[in-house]
């Protein structure tokens, strides 16, 4: 079974600085997707960024970028120029793209990292 591990329960960063959130995963599949979701106090799950495993290029969305190391099964999120509105719980998630597998299309989540942004 796939597992996703976020080893940092909490992180903090100064406004305008850069922070990196860590995520590792375990899978035997070759076709999959990785996601970072943001959950602010409102509870809404907001997609921050996604990475397709077959793409070597790291995904980037404005101030958010990932460092995808497929061989190491690592998927970290870098937030540049941190803003107060970035404060939230961040979840790393995995989804198989193997239509023949039992995990196809289901999201497996890490435990989450609470990010605090200091003014």
């Amino acid at each position, binding site marked *: 079974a796939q597992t*996703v591990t*976020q080893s940092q*329960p909490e992180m903090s960063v100064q406004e305008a600085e850069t922070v990196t959130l860590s995520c590792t995963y375990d899978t035997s599949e070759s076709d999959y*997707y990785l*996601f970072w979701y943001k959950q602010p106090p*409102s*509870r*809404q*799950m907001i*997609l921050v960024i*996604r990475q*397709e495993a077959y793409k070597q290029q790291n995904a980037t969305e404005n101030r958010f970028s990932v460092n995808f190391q497929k061989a190491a099964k690592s998927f970290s999120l870098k937030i540049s120029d941190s803003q107060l509105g970035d404060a939230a719980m961040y*979840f790393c998630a995995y*989804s*198989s*793209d193997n239509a023949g597998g039992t995990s*196809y*299309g*289901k*999201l*497996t*989540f*890490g*435990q*989450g990292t609470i990010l605090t942004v200091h003014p």
Partner: protein
Amino acid sequence: NAGVTQTPKFRILKIGQSMTLQCTQDMNHNYMYWYRQDPGMGLKLIYYSVGAGITDKGEVPNGYNVSRSTTEDFPLRLELAAPSQTSVYFCASRQHRVVYGYTFGSGTRLTVV
């Protein structure tokens, strides 16, 4: 353009009571999911559906039931509520291709006392 709508947003149940959490999506997605999120934890899959009339168990299905009579609706039934079911429940849906991601509802906070 409502996306995924969950009702109610909050609910307090007494031990042994039953209730149904409603989930409706207007995006014509075949795939729908129910997750629960315990305090300080990630989301765990309860049940999922790949289309009307087809449902299957996820990681933590005990104490719950689902049905999928239409593409739009995917209600989650709690029978004989227990304190261990105190959690936040999320419904989600997605298009056929996983790459397009998932749309989540805003969640239902359930407390069983």
